[in-house]
């Protein structure tokens, strides 16, 4: 995937944007496999607690540090299921007039998609509907550091 991204973005210096925390290990490996100049940035999304009468609209609680106006943005996800998060990010970043927005994901579950018009350009693996831990995937905040992905039964 890194070689393909490098070929596609040659001479363009993309910004790789990741939503913390799940994709940070994948991002680290992906970044090191892309042999062209690129920058990294991170966002954090507010957790939903509408059922408790609190936060009822998705928003960034940590925004990008970089300006993406006129830049090529590549959103890096660990997994895309419904596509709701990616849809929100694309809409939000598009307001800042980047040159282009695309996305890549380590894992994809296209059969769970609720939003189809996503700029998903790179997919590592299309996976069955299993629950993974390790390699950034957590269970109650644990197991992110496992070097491999494992299925929880």
């Amino acid at each position, binding site marked *: 995937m890194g070689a393909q991204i490098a070929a596609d973005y040659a001479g363009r210096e993309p910004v790789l944007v990741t939503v913390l925390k*799940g994709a940070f290990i994948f991002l680290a490996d992906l970044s090191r496999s892309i042999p062209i100049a690129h920058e990294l940035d991170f966002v954090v999304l507010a957790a939903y*607690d*509408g*059922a*408790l009468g609190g936060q*009822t*609209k*998705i928003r960034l609680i940590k925004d990008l540090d970089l300006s993406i106006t006129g830049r090529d943005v590549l959103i890096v996800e660990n997994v895309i299921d419904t596509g709701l998060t990616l849809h929100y990010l694309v809409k939000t970043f598009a307001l800042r007039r980047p040159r282009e927005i695309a996305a890549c994901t380590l894992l994809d579950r296209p059969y769970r998609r609720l939003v189809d018009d996503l700029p998903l350009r790179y997919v590592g693996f299309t996976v069955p509907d299993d629950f993974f831990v390790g390699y950034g995937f957590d269970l109650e905040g644990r197991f992110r550091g496992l070097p491999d992905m494992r299925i929880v039964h």
Partner: protein
Amino acid sequence: MASETPGLQASSSADETHFANPAEVECAKILDFYGLQWKYEPRSFVLETDEEGRVIEAFTPDFYLPEQDLYLEVTVMKQSLVTRKNRKIRKLREKYPEIKIKLFTRRDFDRLAHKYKLNLAS
């Protein structure tokens, strides 16, 4: 033939709509959370009629997402118990191949709950 039911709710706010069960409320809140427009039960689809043309089976999906042109049926039942809904969805797809519909299941709720620490109805 599909029939419109314009008298039903066509809202985009979970607080303004009368839902049939807590799972639909949570689904509406999730859609609101992500800023997706939705309508609640805006259309009924006739699945089967008798020889006189009387409706003997119809299906009203829970939500319609206009931006996605997608109908959504919500269930938080166990996977093993969703057969009836799956059968209706299969029938709808056969009769209305142009209609996009998906089942939003317990597992989808769990995934979103895990990812963003949602507090969802069981």
